[in-house]
């Protein structure tokens, strides 16, 4: 850290709306423009600064002291705008408030805590695939039948949710991830359901609504040991329900889309199924299911000579950082021989995705099951995106598979 340098430069200005449909649909051209414009770009439309290069995105993700989350990680600045719901105790909190919820969730979702799920999820993936092939044959929508179906089958059970109302999970997440953007048509079209979806989700966070052996129960047990307050516990459960469903659905969809369009890489995975974990992270790098998050400057800060005043919102383009040619060679290709380590698709630093091991375990289960049974997977039509202000989402990925004989 050092004091502000003698000369500060004005960052270049760009008037694009990164939340406009055309950019949500195809974010890469805008990302390239922003990366080329400079290390910091001012987005005149929203009066925010943007970081699109790997180096600056990584540096600001880890520097929680200078770039806070507590004023919201969306466009709205909680210092003077009212959040649409009680802020998250993890995502939208800074130390010291962030510490206890983070610790509890980290322990509940750590790799050793997930060991007992590995076999269960592996079996669930194989079972799901058997059913899909039996019921739908070799032509189906991979988004619907696999990417969406698998997390919805295993994750709510692992949290300990009851059987009713699970169809609310995806729309709720979709709404929450839209809410990080501006109040555009996407947010407006969610508005009629905010009240009922929120009421359902909040009801599921209560101790009584959760089974005794899931992630949710572990959070409540931590509250009973005094590691969280009784008021915090339901909000920590809510984090799982908000952040743990849509993300993995579109993350798995990214991996399926990647393989359906890269037959050579599919063969590579079939030959070496132990590549499943790396393959999933490469898909997360390549598609970046979580495209963007904001931070707020806690002080006047200087990035590469450009001064950002205290209180300013800063938009970090994770998806762009993950394809920055200064960091990745041939960044636009999906390539299993690449080492995707260090990608920022799960963030970095104290807010780095606390569910990343859960996401990887789901992916490993599904991809290994597929690699075992499916010889070829290819598109049979144009895949369709679903637009969301934050998530790079899908509506459909029509495929034909050939099962191994």
């Amino acid at each position, binding site marked *: 850290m050092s004091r502000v340098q003698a000369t500060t430069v004005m960052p270049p200005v760009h008037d694009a709306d990164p939340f406009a449909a055309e950019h949500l649909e195809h974010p890469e051209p805008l990302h390239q423009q922003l990366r080329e414009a400079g290390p910091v770009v001012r987005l005149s439309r929203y009066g925010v600064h943007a970081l699109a290069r790997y180096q600056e995105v990584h540096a600001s993700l880890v*520097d929680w002291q200078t770039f806070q989350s507590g004023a919201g990680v969306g466009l709205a600045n909680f210092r003077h705008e009212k959040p649409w719901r009680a802020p998250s105790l993890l995502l939208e909190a800074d130390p010291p408030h962030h510490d*206890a919820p983070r610790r509890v969730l980290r322990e509940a979702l750590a790799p050793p805590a997930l060991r007992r799920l590995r076999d269960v999820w592996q079996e669930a993936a194989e079972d799901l695939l058997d059913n899909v092939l039996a019921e739908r044959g070799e032509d189906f929508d991979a988004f619907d039948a696999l990417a969406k179906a698998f997390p919805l089958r295993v994750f709510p059970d692992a949290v300990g949710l009851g059987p009713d109302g699970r169809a609310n999970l995806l729309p709720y997440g979709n709404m929450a991830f839209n809410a990080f953007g501006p109040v555009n048509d996407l947010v407006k079209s969610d508005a009629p359901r905010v009240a009922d979806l929120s009421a359902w989700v909040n009801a599921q966070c209560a101790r009584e609504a959760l089974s005794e052996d899931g992630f949710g129960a572990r959070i409540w047990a931590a509250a009973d040991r005094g590691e969280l307050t009784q008021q915090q516990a339901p909000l920590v459960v809510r984090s799982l329900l908000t952040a743990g469903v849509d993300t993995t659905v579109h993350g798995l969809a990214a991996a399926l889309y990647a393989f359906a369009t890269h037959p050579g890489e599919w063969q590579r995975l079939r030959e070496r199924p132990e590549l499943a974990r790396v393959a999933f992270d490469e898909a997360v790098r390549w598609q970046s299911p979580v495209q963007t998050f904001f931070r707020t400057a806690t*002080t006047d*800060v200087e*990035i590469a000579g450009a001064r950002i005043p205290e209180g300013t919102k800063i938009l970090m383009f994770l998806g762009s950082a993950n394809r920055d040619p200064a960091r*990745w*060679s041939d960044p636009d290709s999906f390539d299993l021989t690449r080492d995707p380590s260090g990608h920022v698709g799960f963030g970095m630093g104290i807010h780095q995705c606390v569910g990343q091991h859960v996401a990887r375990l789901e992916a490993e289960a599904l991809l290994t099951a597929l690699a075992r049974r499916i010889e070829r997977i290819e598109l049979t039509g144009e895949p369709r995106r679903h637009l969301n202000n934050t998530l790079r989402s899908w509506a459909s990925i029509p495929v034909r598979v050939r099962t191994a004989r």
Partner: protein
Amino acid sequence: MPLMGVDTVVVQSLLPTASQPSPSTVTLEVRSKHVVADGVVSLTLAHPDGVRLPDWTPGAHIDVVLPDGTARQYSLCGDRWDPYSYRIAVLRVPEGRGGSAYVHDQLALGARVGVGGPRNHFPLVPAERYLFIAGGIGITPLLSMLRQAQMTGADWQLLYGGRSRASMAFREELTECHGRRVQVAPQDECGLLDLAAWLSEPAPGTKVYCCGPAPLLAAVERACVGWPPYSLRTERFTAAAADPVRRAPFQVELRRSGQTVTVTRETSVLQAVRQAGVEVLSSCEQGSCGTCLTPVLEGTPDHRDSVLADHERAANDCMLPCVSRSRSARLVLDL
């Protein structure tokens, strides 16, 4: 919260890139060393290249590796809003096993020292009120807790005992900053801490944090028997000695790929494995995210991460190769 006295901060970009692996944070340099009380020195440690150190929370400690390869745990007592340095304070223990004598007598300004962690077995849990009880050097983990308690708006008090005023580190800055919240009770003036007066009435909603010598902990535990469960949290300075770590190079066998690599002091296990062309997914490369977790089939790892709990470490069946090393001459990994 802005850094004190700094108008504008410049974001540094000391970052791992494809060609340049992230600098390992397991060797730090002594940047300052001061006597802060009779028999107590405070040290500031930083990375030789000035990069950010792994984040920590109040109550955390680091392992400091001594020249004989054994490690000692010292609580972090600095400012976590400064990501570039760690502060520890060490009491000379004449009858100890040599850790404090080494830190006092030999660990000079500019010296390099092996470090593991940070890890936290003594986290500050949320509460409306805290009662902190420190005995002597037991003040160290509590120091950063006080500041956090202040920030969350909790009501708190510190009862700080020690042999004599002169032996009590940070006494002046504590009373200056916090005034009536801090009660300093040197034994030669006030006798033993009057725990009965402080603890006889259980106070629901209050958490008691105590760190100090074993007799103090035992007394506080006795005084708190009538308190609601989980009211009391203690940390004891344990003397449990671990096997020495290796300074010499070691061999890592990658069982599945049938290769063996040598890991010297200059590289991490992760780097050595990658150089052999074997993929290991990683992310933070600081031992804090858990991404590089790798099963260990044979040998004893030298755990330096912030991820695994004690019982998971003791099982020695997995490790975080981005920071952890080996105690045995050979490690066999399931890679």
